């Protein structure tokens, strides 16, 4: 899928989630990620980031999924990494489950500190949905 289309879906999703759609000079998702990268403020509404990704994936696939997301932290603050679990409600299949060396993990972790990172994560989920 074209990068521009993914970015447009991310920006639309972010405007809805952050309430920016009602502001005169709304902050873009790209700007929001830049601020997060710079400050990593513990009071930052950090979950807007995974919610925006999930919303964009659902809009681009025109489907709903079951999600779990977590913003990872170290002793000081957010690390900029997010873990996701995604389940397809039609098949109940956990799309993020991966088997290796005899064990199975259910979550995937990505750093998301820029719009490029966000695009890559959306592309990853679009591939998962396509493969499923």
């Amino acid at each position, binding site marked *: 899928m074209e990068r521009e289309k993914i970015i447009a879906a991310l920006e639309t999703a972010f405007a809805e989630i952050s309430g920016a759609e009602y502001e005169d000079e709304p902050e873009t998702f790209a700007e929001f990620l830049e601020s997060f990268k710079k400050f990593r403020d513990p009071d930052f509404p950090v979950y807007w980031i995974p919610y925006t990704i999930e919303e964009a994936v659902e809009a681009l696939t025109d489907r*709903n999924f*079951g*999600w*779990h997301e977590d913003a990872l932290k170290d002793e000081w603050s957010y690390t900029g990494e997010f873990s996701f679990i995604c389940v397809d*409600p039609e098949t*109940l*299949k*956990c799309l993020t489950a991966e088997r290796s060396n005899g064990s199975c993990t*259910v*979550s995937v972790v990505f750093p998301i500190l820029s719009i490029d990172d966000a695009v890559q994560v959306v592309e990853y989920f679009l591939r998962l949905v396509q493969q499923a």
Partner: protein
Amino acid sequence: MQLEQQTFTDEQIKQAIEEVWQELLQEADAEDYSLEEYLEDYRKYWNDPDFPNDIPEIVVRTVERLIGKTLAWYCELGRDPAGFTGEYSFIVVDPKTQKCLTFRQYTSDGINIHYFLSVTGTVVYYEDIIRLVNKLISYISPALNS
């Protein structure tokens, strides 16, 4: 394996918990430390972020032992500004089929993949672990059987 009709007695669950606890001690190369002692420490230090919370591991491994099946799982500890709330949020997946066993759909977009288990007042005794094991088995059984 059909689990809907299968129930486990408290004694069976207790025995499985004990076996799991011994397994965990061996893996940690720990000295003799009974589950009762661990739970006593848990009741004192449950809200200390450095205290190792083994409850999810004990619960899922006991379920695995009882149903004779390995599970893939994720557990998040519920937190509020004061710390751990005593809530455990489990996501359980069958590694063979990759089916999410804790999935529930209530409306077209009302999808939930977690199963929340809580321990009142975050004070955990042996019987609480038995209760958590029983509840998790009941919750995942329909999806395991379908």
